[in-house]
């Protein structure tokens, strides 16, 4: 779930003190690893998303399918979507509660779409680390955002694909005719997490509550030991394997022989592209948020293009001292919320909306949570393409969740490997490599940030907005999640 949850104490990634001894060692390794340069070159030489518009337009002429509309099934559209700026945890959102952030996203959506509140049939939010006071955060946020108290709301959780689950739940409700208008979203506030009393302490407190006489109370209190006071943190590691995600990502990168240099280069690409998108005003899903008692937050604050030299100075964060995953090539702990307005197409048209995109086929997958924890996109991508009757060539826009550079590069290598496809996916041949010039062109979770519960909606809106901007027709969204799960969905541009 949490890429960085084991390093809650992090501040800004690259401010760490460099350790020259280890770096020289690492660079030595990198230089001596085979295959290093192929990837590096590809990243360096790739022009920053300039010519892609033309390519996409050309490609859309020769699609396997003209549209993914299916007879007798309702077309489902995303009218629009918004998100709060994604901030590094512990910054401007640190005094808020999760439902405050979710409320900001909901209000932003209302404002952006001007949808009448009473039209909304249902609200679904995804979240991962639950605030115990607002365990159904969707309902608390909806009430606070001024939605009708007659609109039911529920909260879903599926690690990093929680808001993907919120959206596909909405798709299910609309496709089955139960609803016409659903708001789906997600929220995560890592600035505050529920730290509990220990189980022993809780048990004592509960017993104390039930005790009737003074003697009973005293006998319970007499059992108190000092170690009862040691707190219990939310799980920082995979429950089934006790391995933190960063550790697993480091092993994954090693399994695919991905060097530190490659990872840093990919991270730099993500930050550079995000910066460019931010500067050019392409991140139009971001809505300003006036934080009570603080200045209005208008943009993401985790985008920091650095230099490879600077990044190379960081120590490994998980596998010490020789691992390759560092603060600079991992996504950071993030606060943020997102929301999208999903409707049946006919309803949207009847209300006079010009939707942004169709939500088409989607797929959930799961695999070994130990050694393949973060390979969900590799498994989900071919399945969703086959289900939709498309090929890799049909896709104009790829939006993959970037938990770690190493995770993205491992997925790309896995998709490019016949051996992996044959031995682990039961396929005759490799999935194929998404062309990098269509891949996460406006940055990704590494640079924009990754509020676990909210990333899915950001991916869909990035795909939809890029399709409009670049003139493509099909977008592919994919993400990995804790528990060894994964998700992929096809987004089809709404005809202009």
């Amino acid at each position, binding site marked *: 779930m949490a890429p960085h949850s084991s390093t809650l104490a992090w501040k800004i990634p690259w401010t760490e003190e460099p350790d020259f001894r280890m770096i020289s060692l690492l660079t*030595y390794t990198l230089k001596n690893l085979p295959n290093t340069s192929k990837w590096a070159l590809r990243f360096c030489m790739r022009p920053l998303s300039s010519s892609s518009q033309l390519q996409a337009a050309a490609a859309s002429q020769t699609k396997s399918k003209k549209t993914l509309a299916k007879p007798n099934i309702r077309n489902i559209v995303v009218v629009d979507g918004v998100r709060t700026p994604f901030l590094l945890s512990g910054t401007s959102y640190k005094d808020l509660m999760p439902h405050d952030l979710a409320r900001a996203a909901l209000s932003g959506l209302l404002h952006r779409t001007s949808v009448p509140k009473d039209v909304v049939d249902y609200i679904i939010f995804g979240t991962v680390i639950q605030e115990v006071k607002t365990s159904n955060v969707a309902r608390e946020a909806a009430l606070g955002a001024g939605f009708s108290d007659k609109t039911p709301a529920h909260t879903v959780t599926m690690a990093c694909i929680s808001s993907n689950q919120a959206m596909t739940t909405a798709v299910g409700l609309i496709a089955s005719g139960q609803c016409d208008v659903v708001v789906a979203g997600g929220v995560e506030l890592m600035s505050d997490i529920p730290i509990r009393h220990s189980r022993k302490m809780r048990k004592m407190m509960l017993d104390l509550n039930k005790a009737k006489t003074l003697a009973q109370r005293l006998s319970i209190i007499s059992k108190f030991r000092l170690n009862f006071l040691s707190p219990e943190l939310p799980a920082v590691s995979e429950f089934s394997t006790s391995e933190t995600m960063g550790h697993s990502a480091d092993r994954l990168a090693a399994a695919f022989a991905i060097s530190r240099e490659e990872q840093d280069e990919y991270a730099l690409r993500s930050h550079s592209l995000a910066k460019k998108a931010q500067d050019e005003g392409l991140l139009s899903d971001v809505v300003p948020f006036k934080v009570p008692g603080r200045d209005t937050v208008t943009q993401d604050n985790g985008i920091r293009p650095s230099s490879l030299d600077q990044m190379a100075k960081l120590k490994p964060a998980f596998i010490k001292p020789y691992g390759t995953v560092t603060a600079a090539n991992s996504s950071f702990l993030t606060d943020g919320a997102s929301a999208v307005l999903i409707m049946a197409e006919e309803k949207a048209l009847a209300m006079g909306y010009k939707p942004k995109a169709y939500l088409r086929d989607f797929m959930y997958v799961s695999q070994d949570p130990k050694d393949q924890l973060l390979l969900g996109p590799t498994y989900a991508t071919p399945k969703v393409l086959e289900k939709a009757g498309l090929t890799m060539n049909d896709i104009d826009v790829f939006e993959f969740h970037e938990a770690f550079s190493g995770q993205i590069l491992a997925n790309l290598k896995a998709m490019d490997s016949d051996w992996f496809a044959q031995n682990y996916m039961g396929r005759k041949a490799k999935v194929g490599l998404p062309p990098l010039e269509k891949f996460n062109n406006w940055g990704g979770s590494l640079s924009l940030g990754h509020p676990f519960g909210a990333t899915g909606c950001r991916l869909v809106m990035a795909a939809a907005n890029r399709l409009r901007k670049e003139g493509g027709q099909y977008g592919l969204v994919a993400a990995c999640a804790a528990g060894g799960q994964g998700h992929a969905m096809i987004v089809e541009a709404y005809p202009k």
Partner: protein
Amino acid sequence: RVGHDLAPEQQATNRNSVLKIINCEIRFLTGYICRSFTRSSALLTRTHINYGVRGDVAVIRINSPNSKVNTLSQELHSEFMEVMNEVWSSSQIRSAVLISTKPGCFIAGADLNMLNSCTTSQEVTQISQEAQKMFEKLEKSTKPVVAAINGSCLGGGLELAISCQYRIATKDKKTVLGSPEVLLGILPGAGATQRLPKMVGIPAAFDMMLTGRGIRADRAKKMGLVDQLVEPLGPGVKPPEERTIEYLEEVAITFAKGLADKKITPKRDKGLVEKLTSYALSIPFVRQQIYKKVEEKVRKQTKGLYPAPLKIIDVSLYPILQHLSCFFPLSRTFGELAMTKESKALMGLYRGQTQCKKNKFGAPQKEVKQLAVLGAGLMGAGIAQVSVDKGLQTILKDTTLPALGRGQQQVFKGLNDKVKKKTLTSFERDAMFSNLIGQLDYRGFEKADMVIEAVFEDLNLKHRVLKEAEAVIPDHCVFASNTSALPIGEIATVSKRPEKVIGMHYFSPVDKMQLLEIITTEKTSKDTTASAVDVGLRQGKVIIVVKDGPGFYTTRCLTPMMSEVIRILQEGVGPKKLDSLTTSFGFPVGAATLVDEVGVDVAKHVAENLGKEFGERFAGGSLEMLQQMISKGFLGRKSGKGFYIYQEGVKNKNLNSDMDSILASLKMPSQPDVSSDEDIQYRLVTRFVNEAILCLQEGVLATPTEGDIGAVFGLGFPPCLGGPFHFVDLYGAQKIVDRLRKYEAAYGKQFTPCQLLVDHANNPNKKFYQ
């Protein structure tokens, strides 16, 4: 080498892996030629070691041909020396990595065949000295050498690793570091006795060397035995095992380079406690006191029967060696130990254990995937536990909910204890426990591939469950009976398909006792046997396969000895004295205590049945004693009283004084010339041994090896004697026959030596093990 007598199919797989290895080597070679200089002529002549250079780091890869493991043989030794000399003389090379490309094995130890082929202690001493010289050169190497350890790193392998300047190990379950020499009756002969205490401290070093305990990688890191850990990798673009070794090598190379550049120091920060301990131990007086304490403890535990542990303590006292000459006394002791009877017995057991971990009946036609166990008692639940934790789907059936619940709880507790010991995670426990289905009916038995019944030892009940099961199980399903004495042939009489009926005699507690005795009747098919052995091996058992007959092999050997136990008690030797006589002979549990543990009722039941079958050869003590004990409720540990009184939480058990009247009423006169302490010990042991040899003579046993393994692993026959057959070989058949004749004269036919034993006595060249 260690367990090299492979079945043909294993040789075939070995050939395949050899081909693979050759392929790898070719790939490596081409890589090196492109990258840097290589000495191809030398490479081509070497078979155990392949070596190349990356930058200025020499990478030395060990992979002995035609073997599952690498062992320190003479060839490997000389090739290694040759390579190291090249490394030391090359000006381009500044550091080296030592790694094995064999999956799951760094170096499993010295080549045992090499040791066994030595006929004099001088030869062994020579081997030890050669190794010490090599390791000393290695230790003093100015070019740092990093040992990259994946898989077993044992004995000489560990000694090699700790002579290197740095150690990196994979955190794999197969990666185990240890000094198991003591278990073979020898000592670490190549420097561990000196280097280990220096490296991990005296207490931990003694623990390793005196128990032979294997240390897993994460613990080794904490102890300071290894410097870095590498996590095993999952799948990438090649098989995980292959890539993990590659990754280990890459990491090791960075560290080798770092060491050569002096950017990494091999020194480790020690904790405060560790510092204090090592300070305290640096005071000669304290050190001597500790050595004394350890020696005392070892003496008490080994009862003087095992020379190796004491010698290990002795040689550890030698000063930390500076000169080659200092090594000599150590090597001499090593050579002497290797020639002892104890060492030969223990090495024989090791070989036997390796043989009994193979399925000589071949792979079964259909692998058992669904197992069903009838009866959720102590045995049934134990069998279920060792099955589910290996991933076998298992149905546990009993007739009542409380009985079933007790069995399920036993399985859970067994698994949960491993979680507490941190050998399992709670998640793994849950996943294993989900392989167990508890039920009261025969639902799902139609899909069972094997049913093991573990109901009460009552022939009628066994017949009933067999018929019930056969009504529902499919045609291919094997029906196995877990019984300690009921003949399988008799159980099979009511079967519609006796070729599918077999005996699987487990020992209690099933999760701790390694032995499984499989019993075949004349009608049991070979495939049924293959299937039973296969399941047993998957359950982690050491297996002997014997022919059906009253008491099979194990129970049959034990019973005459038990009869003698009663006789000895009747002659006025108290249970405590008897226990001490048997344990001082090397049995792990005293004879009287053993009766209590087995259960007096069970003992009587077995003695009665076998007594009927075998007549006067099983005579001796009066069964009346057991009868009286049963009537008073003294059933042994399970009822809280037997010869001793058992109380929860009380460690020192007291004699049951109520036994006095029983013992008094059955008192018999003792015969002074056959009642010395030694005579009492030999009366017990010779009856056991004689019966074991008779089992081989009658064909109940197929091989002496199985007889030894069954006696030691199932019945606690003294390991230092190597089992009854090793005992006869090492002690001399004539001496045993003489003893038996002496006791025969005093007591009668129960001591008559069997023909095979007499044959061995008459011909001193005849040995069970050639």
